[in-house]
Every structure is written in C-alpha cells, then in structure tokens.
C-alpha cells in the first residue's frame, strides 16, 4: 500500500488523498461528476508538483497517525479548560517560564508537527528553534517542574511522531 520506492503514477499518495477530500468538502457534495473531478485533481496536481520537491515525507504507520490525531484532539480540549481556568483565576499566582526542549526528531515535517502540537496543547507555545535543530524553545504559561514537563511532552508526542514518520 505504501511502497518504499515512490511510484510514478501516484508520487505523493497522502497529498492525493488530502486533495481529494478537500475538493469534495469545498463543494460539499458526493455527486458523481465532482468525485470524477476530484480524482483527476488528486492524480494530476501531485504529478505536476512532485518534481519541485526533494525527499517526500512519508507516513509509515497511518493507523498510529489516526490515534495520534485523536490524542491531540483530546489534549486540546483539556488544554482549553486548563487555560480558561488560569485566565479567569488570579493572575499573580501563575509562574510563566521559558524552557528549552531537546529534540530527537530530525525531519522538517516531524519538527513542524511537534512544534504545532506543543503550541496547541497544555499551556505551552513554541517560540523558536535553534539553528542546529536540536533545541525547541517553549514558553509555558504556568510551570512548576520543567524537567517533568519536558519528559512528558517527549513521551507523549515525540515518540509516537517518530514512529509515525519512521525517522
């Protein structure tokens, strides 16, 4: 299903799938004509743009990716309630903090996904990444124990991401 060597017919299978779904969502229909058009776009556009790019990121384990997405959704919900309580509560009790998280993940897509996940979940926003891509600088709204937080973020998000992207 996901060949190691990229096929010439479908150079970017996941981009094709995404294009197909987005086209149908934009038109909000399942009419036969639109499905045909979506299939055509999903085949033609990746074929046209694939030569512009070096090294396509591949998803090795799609089911794990789905589970990861559900985990992040749940964490967004929890994060929102936490942040709401902090915002509405007394502000002189919060201890904001800058921390640096060491990165094990190497690929562009992996780092982007990790930083975005950090931004969306409990009380942290990723601010900057070091030039050698080994450290991610994060601002936390309320921080009691930085080491515990770093460990948790790495275990919860980085390990599954590494497994999903296979790097």
């Amino acid at each position, binding site marked *: 299903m996901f060949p190691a060597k990229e096929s010439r017919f479908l150079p970017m299978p996941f981009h094709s799938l995404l294009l197909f779904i*987005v086209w149908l*969502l*934009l*038109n*909000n229909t399942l009419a036969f004509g639109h499905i045909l058009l979506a299939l055509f776009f999903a085949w033609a556009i990746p074929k046209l743009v694939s030569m512009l790019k070096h090294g396509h990121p591949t998803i090795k384990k799609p089911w794990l990716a789905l589970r990861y997405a559900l985990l992040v959704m749940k964490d*967004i*919900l929890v*994060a*929102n309630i936490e*942040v*709401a309580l902090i*915002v*509405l509560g007394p*502000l002189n009790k*919060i*201890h*904001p*903090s*800058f*921390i*640096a998280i060491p990165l094990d993940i190497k690929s562009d897509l992996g780092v982007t996904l990790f*930083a*975005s*996940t950090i*931004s*969306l979940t409990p*009380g942290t*926003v*990723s*601010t*900057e*990444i*070091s*030039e*050698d891509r*080994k*450290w991610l*600088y994060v*601002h936390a*709204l309320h*921080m009691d124990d*930085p*080491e515990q937080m770093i460990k948790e973020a790495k275990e919860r998000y980085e390990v599954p991401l590494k497994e999903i992207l296979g790097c």
Partner: protein
Amino acid sequence: MEFWLESLVAIVLVIGGVFLLIGSIGLVRLPDIYTRLHGPTKATTLGIAGLLLASSVVSSFAEGSISIHEWLITLFLLITAPVSANMIAKTALHHGLPAIERTKGQELMEQANRQAPPTGMTTSLESDAKDKQP
C-alpha cells in the same frame, strides 16, 4: 428539528461563544505578550470548532443531507493557529520585548533570538533542583 437536538446545538453554541470570550479576556487580562499568546491561540480554536459543529448540524437538518464542509475552516484554523502564534512569538523575541519579571528562564530568550543552542541549560536545571531541595 427535534427538541433535544435543538437544545444540544444551543448548548454547543453557547460553549463555543464562552470559549471565544475567554480567549479575548485572556488577551486583555494577561500581563505580557508571551502570556497573551496563550489565550487566543488555544481558546479561539475550540470556540470556532464549537460554532462550526453547531452550524454543521443545523445546515444538515435544513438541507436534508449531511453538510460537513464547515469542518474545512476548523481544519484550516487548527493548522494555522500554531503557525501564527509562533511567528508572533518570534517577532516579539526579535524585538526583545521584556517578559514579566517572575518569568523563569529569561536567560533563554536571548539565546532563542540568536537561534543558538542553550548554553547554560543543564546547569540552570541543576541549580533549580538544588533550590527546591531545602
């Protein structure tokens, strides 16, 4: 529309609205730019998601067919919200905006702006641990 579904939609709408308001309250109340980033990026995403869920259910009933294209906006905001938060944080660091005094790890701000690895990271963690022990 049936009564229970209508009340469910109404509840989801109100929850979404409350989260949007909380995001804006955070924007007004929090003390410095770095903490202010937290309110809008998180709370507004969930608020919009709630409103769009309600809109999707209502228009599905109005048209008699399932309408899920509202989820496209949610998906788009979910992807772009962290990116714009990151860009604003980058700009704030670049201009050297001060964080409030009790922010820990302020020595990291300057290194982050230079995109250098944190030099005193391990030592600062150790000293923090030492401070906590007694």
